[in-house]
C-alpha cells in the first residue's frame, strides 16, 4: 500500500471558506499517534478514531465477502449466471427454479456460513484478549467440548431433531463455561487459570463424548459423528433467523466493551487505574463470546479452527496490535464462507465444511509455528 501524502479530508475548494477547520461540521484529521491514525470529527464533539490501514483491510474483507457471497449463489449443480443471481436476489428471477435454488437453498446457507464464521471469529478474538494467549479460543474454556457432549447426549438419548440438538449444544456449552469460570475464580479470574481449568474440563468432556459414542447404536453414533464434524448442509432460513437474532443481540455488548477489554490486556491494575471495571468487563465479554460460540455451535456443529485462526489472520492483515473484534469477525465470515465453497465444489466429493476448516487451520498453524521457530533461531 502506498502512503498518500495527506488524509482524504473533505476539503472544500480553496478560497471559498476560511482555513478554520471548525467551520466544517465533519472533518478527518491525522491523530499524529501513528502514521496511519486518523480521527473523524462530527458535530457536538463527537469523534471516532480509526486507522487507515485497518479500515482499508476491513473494506477488502467486505469485498471478499461479496465475492464469496455471489459465487456461492451462482455455483452448483445448477449454475446460474451472476446477472441472474442479482436479478433473483432483487425479486426478479428468470424462472421459478432459479428463485428456489438461490433464495430457498443457497442464500440461507451462505448467510449461515457468514454469521457462524463471524461469530466464531469475534468469539476467538475475545478469548485471545481475555486469556492474553494467542491460542485462546472457545475450546480453551472447554466450551466446544461441553457443547459437543450436550449435543451428542441429545442425539443418542432422544434421537434428536435439529432444534433439540442445538438446544443440547447450547446447554452443554453454557454449563461448561459457567463451571469453568467458577472453578477458575479466585479474587477475580485470571487468564492463565481460565486456560488450565478449561483444558482440564475439555479433556474430561471429550472422554465423556467418546464414552457415549462407544455405548451407542451404530446408526446413532454415525449421525452424532457427522454433527461433531461441523457442517452447513441443509441449513435453511430458520437457522438464519435464529443465528441472526442472537448475533444482533450480542453485537452491541461487544461494541461497547471491546475498548475497555483492550485495556485489560495491560493488566488489571493498569486498566483499573484508567477507570475500567476489570472484573465486570471481563465477565461481560466472556458472556458475549460464550453466547456467540454457543450460537455458532448450535447452528453448525463444532467447526474447528475458525475461532483460533481468524483473529490471527486479521491481526496480520491489519497490522494492529492485539485482537480487533470487528476485523476478526469479518475474517471469520470470509474464512468459513470460502471453506464451505471449497467443501462443496472444489473437492471431488462434497465434505462437511468442518473437514476443510481443520485442514486449512492445521496448515496455517504448522506454517505459523515454523515461521515463529525460524524467527527465534535466526
Amino acid at each position: 500500500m502506498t502512503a498518500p501524502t495527506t488524509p482524504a479530508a473533505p476539503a472544500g475548494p480553496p478560497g471559498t471558506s476560511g482555513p478554520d477547520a471548525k467551520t466544517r461540521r465533519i472533518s478527518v484529521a491525522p491523530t499524529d499517534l501513528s502514521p496511519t491514525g486518523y480521527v473523524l470529527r462530527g458535530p457536538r464533539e463527537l469523534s471516532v478514531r480509526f486507522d487507515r490501514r485497518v479500515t482499508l483491510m476491513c473494506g477488502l474483507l467486505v469485498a471478499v465477502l461479496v465475492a464469496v457471497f455471489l459465487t456461492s449463489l451462482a455455483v452448483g449443480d445448477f449454475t446460474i449466471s451472476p446477472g441472474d443471481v442479482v436479478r433473483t436476489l432483487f425479486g426478479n428471477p428468470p424462472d421459478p427454479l432459479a428463485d428456489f435454488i438461490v433464495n430457498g437453498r443457497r442464500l440461507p446457507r451462505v448467510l449461515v456460513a457468514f454469521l457462524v464464521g463471524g461469530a466464531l471469529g469475534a468469539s476467538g478474538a475475545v478469548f485471545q484478549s481475555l486469556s492474553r494467549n494467542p491460542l485462546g479460543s472457545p475450546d480453551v474454556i472447554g466450551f466446544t467440548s461441553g457443547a459437543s457432549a450436550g449435543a451428542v447426549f441429545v442425539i443418542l438419548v432422544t434421537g434428536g431433531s435439529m432444534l433439540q440438538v442445538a438446544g443440547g449444544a447450547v446447554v452443554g456449552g453454557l454449563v461448561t463455561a459457567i463451571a469453568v469460570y467458577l472453578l477458575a475464580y479466585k479474587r477475580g479470574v485470571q487468564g492463565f487459570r481460565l486456560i488450565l481449568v478449561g483444558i482440564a474440563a475439555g479433556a474430561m468432556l471429550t472422554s465423556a463424548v467418546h464414552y457415549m459414542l462407544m455405548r451407542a447404536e451404530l446408526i446413532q453414533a454415525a449421525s452424532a459423528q457427522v454433527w461433531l464434524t461441523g457442517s452447513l448442509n441443509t441449513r435453511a432460513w430458520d437457522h438464519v433467523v435464529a443465528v441472526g437474532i442472537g448475533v444482533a443481540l450480542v453485537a452491541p455488548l461487544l461494541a461497547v466493551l471491546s475498548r475497555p477489554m483492550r485495556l485489560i490486556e495491560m493488566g488489571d491494575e493498569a486498566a483499573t487505574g484508567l477507570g475500567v471495571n476489570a472484573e465486570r468487563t471481563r465477565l461481560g465479554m466472556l458472556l458475549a463470546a460464550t453466547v456467540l460460540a454457543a450460537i455458532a455451535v448450535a447452528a453448525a456443529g463444532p467447526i474447528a479452527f475458525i475461532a483460533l485462526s481468524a483473529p490471527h489472520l486479521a491481526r496480520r492483515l491489519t497490522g494492529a496490535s492485539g485482537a480487533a473484534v470487528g476485523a476478526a469477525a469479518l475474517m471469520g465470515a470470509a474464512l468459513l464462507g470460502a471453506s464451505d465453497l471449497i467443501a462443496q465444489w472444489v473437492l471431488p466429493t462434497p465434505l462437511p465444511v468442518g473437514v476443510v476448516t481443520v485442514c486449512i487451520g492445521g496448515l496455517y498453524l504448522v506454517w505459523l509455528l515454523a515461521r515463529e521457530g525460524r524467527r527465534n533461531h535466526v
Partner: protein
Amino acid sequence: MSEPRLHGNDLTLAYDERVISRELSVAIPDGSFTVIVGPNACGKSTLLRALARMLKPTAGAVHLDGQLITQYPTKEAARRLGLLPQSSIAPEGITVADLVSRGRYPHQRLFRQWSTADTEAVADAMANTGITDLRHRRVDELSGGQRQRVWLAMVLAQQTPILLLDEPTTFLDIAHQIEVLDLCHDLHATHGRTLVAVLHDLNHACRYATHLIAMRDGEIVAEGAPSDIVDETLVRDVFGLSCRIIDDPETGTPLVIPAAKQPLVTTA
C-alpha cells in the same frame, strides 16, 4: 485546615486470610511528594494499592475529595487519581504513542474517542518524559528505562491531580532512577500535583520526598518531613540497620550511611 483530598481511616488490609495492616490511618498532604518507605513485605505497596482502590479494605475506608473512593464511578475516580502499577503488560506490537494515548481513556466516551485536549495531553506527557522521538517505535523494542518512561507518560496523560506510583524506579539503572525522580519532583513542584510513591532507596526518599511515611510490619512508624524524622534510631527501628546520618552534600537532606561491621577494605 480542611481535610486532605486523599486519606484512609482505620484501614484493615488483607489478602484473603492474611492480614497485612490493622487500623491503619494515613493522610496524604495536598500538593506533597509523599514517599512510603520500609523493609520488604512491610505493607507499603499494599497501602498504596488500597489508596488506589485496587485493594478493597476489610475494614475502614479510603476517602477521595470528601467522598468514599468506592462511591465514584470508576472512570470519575480515574480522572482524579492515577496509578502506575508495579508491573504492567505492553500489548504485543503496540507503539509508544498508542500506549500513551490509552491514558486518555477516562476522558473519553464511546463516540467521543479523541478530542483536541487528548492530543495535547499525550504530546505534553511524551515531551515531559522525553519520549517524543520514540513515539512511533514499538514498546517491546525499547530498553527498560525507556519503557518505564513510556508507562509513566501514560499515567501523566491521564492528567490526574493525584498520582500514585508503585516503585517507579525498579529495574532502572542509577541514572534513569534519578531521571524519573527528577521528573516526579518537577510534576510536584511546577505542576502542583500530589504524588505518592513507594520507593526502596531510603536516600532517594530523603532527597525527594516532602513527606515521608516509614512503615514496618504493616504499621506507620513515623511520618513527616525527612529532615525531621530520619535519624539513626528510626533507621534501626524500621530497617534494623545501624547507620550514621550525615547531611547530603548536594541537598542538605539526610543521607544514610550504613555502618560497616568490620573493615571491608584490607590495606596491605
